[in-house]
């Protein structure tokens, strides 16, 4: 395993964790959605790194990451659309106030 790969993987892991941290802690719904993008992109980084420096380098990783980007966009679009609808209903974008549904 090359050092190159290791550093990419580490970076991706750090990004993934930052994203996860954002999702789990940020009050603003928009930032939560953004953090998800961060996580997804961390994975893309992983895939591309494997594609280039992996034990068996192949193009498939890059193809996969392209798919991911498209899907992430769709996901983000839907996420934001739902958020807007929710914002209209609630008048707030703080995730911790979205607790009508409980227990």
């Amino acid at each position: 395993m090359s050092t190159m790969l290791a550093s990419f993987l580490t970076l991706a892991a750090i990004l993934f964790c930052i994203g996860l941290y954002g999702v789990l802690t940020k009050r603003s719904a928009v930032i939560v959605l953004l953090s998800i993008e961060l996580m997804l992109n961390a994975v893309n980084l992983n895939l591309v790194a494997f594609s280039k420096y992996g034990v068996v380098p192949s193009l498939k990783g890059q193809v996969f990451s392209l798919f991911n980007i498209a899907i992430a966009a769709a996901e983000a679009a839907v996420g934001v659309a739902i958020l807007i609808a929710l914002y209209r209903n609630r008048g707030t974008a703080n995730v911790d106030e979205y607790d009508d549904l409980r227990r």
Partner: protein
Amino acid sequence: METVFSQYAWAIPTIPLLAFLVLTALGRQIKGAASLLGLLSSLAALVLSVLVLTERWSPDAEVYSHSIDWVNLGEVTLRVGYELTNLNVLMLIVVTIVSTLVNLYAKGYMEGDDRQHVFFAYIALFTSSMLGLVVSPNLLQLYMFWELVGACSFLLIGFWYDRPAARAAAKKAFIVTRIGDVGLLIAILLLFWQMPDHSLDFSVIQTVFQSGDSLAQHGITAGIATWIASLIFIGAMGKSGQFPLHTWLPDAMEGPTPISALIHAATMVAAGVYLVARTFSIFHVSPTAMAIVAGIGGFTAIFAATIGLAQRDIKRILAYSTVSQLGYMMMALGLGAVTAGVFHLFTHAFFKALLFLGAGSVIHAVHTQDIFQMGGLGRKMKVTTWTFAIGAMALSGIPPFSGFWSKDAILAAAWEQDHKLLFVIGVLAAFFTAFYMARLFFVAFTGKPADDQIYQQAHESPSSMTIPLVVLAVLALIAGFVYTPFNGQFGIWLTGEPAEDHANVLVMIISVAAGVCGVLLGYVLYRPGQSQRVDKLEQAAAPLFRVLERKYYIDELYNWLIVRPLRVIGKGLDIIDRYVVDGLVRFISAFVDGWGRTSTRVQNGQLQTYGIVSLFGFVALVLLMLALGRGFW
């Protein structure tokens, strides 16, 4: 020997049973005829019994036995049937005679009771069961009828069920005798697994327990024989009211008086004695068991006699005297004097039935049972008084009444076996017996009436009641001549063993002296013409008298030692059951529920909490993986 009638001996218990069934089914319709049916069935049984007896005159009459399979249990077959030996034919006669007379007597006594048919039905059932018990060829069948007579006794004691006292007495009678029955049951269990082929037949028992050798042949140790004998004796104690299981018998007097005469004087209570006699071979091989029987019998004889001194209730006095006399019989058996014991059973049945029926006649007339409220009845109730006097003398052992001969036979046995202590006890008990009977007789039948109102209503009973009294009085007079010291045929006939020469003049003199002294002392203390409101004995030794009157506080002792602890344990267990056993269940369900509630607490609606929970789950999985022992590095 012809066995024409013996073949039909099965009908002896069956006839009363049929009467019972008819009475149960049609009782309410036939009402008045109920007593007649009961009487006829008993009479038929009596006639058949006498016919059977005629076939067994000779002492070497063969044992007649017939059984059918009752139930098959794999390799074991339990059988039922009937067996005729001289011993049980004698018992048949006793039972049927007393039953017939009591049926006749009860016709008058129960006149006007609207549950007469039930009463006679019960009596028929009892008679049937008792006869069944007597003819049982094996211990198991005996046990079954043993329980049935107990149940009948229970039903009849509780006949007047709306009286709380009757309810309590019935319950007590059943439960206390049950304690004894369990002893017998365990004995049966033990015998069942010890006997060859699991046989419980008396004939087989007799063969196996013939001698030490035959025992060893069947691999039964002396210790086991002692156990079996002692356990059987526990059964006998329960039924025959031996100390310490005697407490139910006096209470049983809550039942109608004819019942007291039939069941609690003449027949059922003697079943214990009969049982020991029937299985005597088992006792015979175990000196320890014999000593226990003799010891308990002797103790009961004196113990009950002393209590009898201080009772005021006419039936209770008689009841304690019954206990005491049963003790005598047991003592005789324990001394090995089977003939004497059975003989006493035989005579006692008649005179004690007589005494109870006499007492019933009195109670019927005056509606009280307290002898100190009676007095002077002799003038109004001639027949009752005279017959009662005969019975009392028989009981007191005054010659030539029957009780004298049988009691003398027992004392002679004790004397000959050099059992000084038992002999002294026997004599003392005889003395006490004579004394309290004298007390009873003089207080109740002679002197001035204690209560005018009661005296006014006293009258002689109807002939249906007096005829049995007369018949029994005759029997009480003559029954003793069956077996006098000068005529040992009865012994040979009964046990098949050569006549013992038990004519012992010294013993006779002591015995007569004890009886006469008792009567005389009674006369001195309670002679007519004194103010009879006060009990002389009570004045003389009040504390002792109190102890005797309270029956040595045995009932209280049981209450404190057994009944209350049982109730306390029960309450305690009830609490445990509610709060510990069921509490455990509740705890488990609360635990499950609590787990659910805790898990539900996570559902606070915050999506970030949900994420964190999942993250914890992820960490837990990682830990699980590490714990599986195949970690990363």
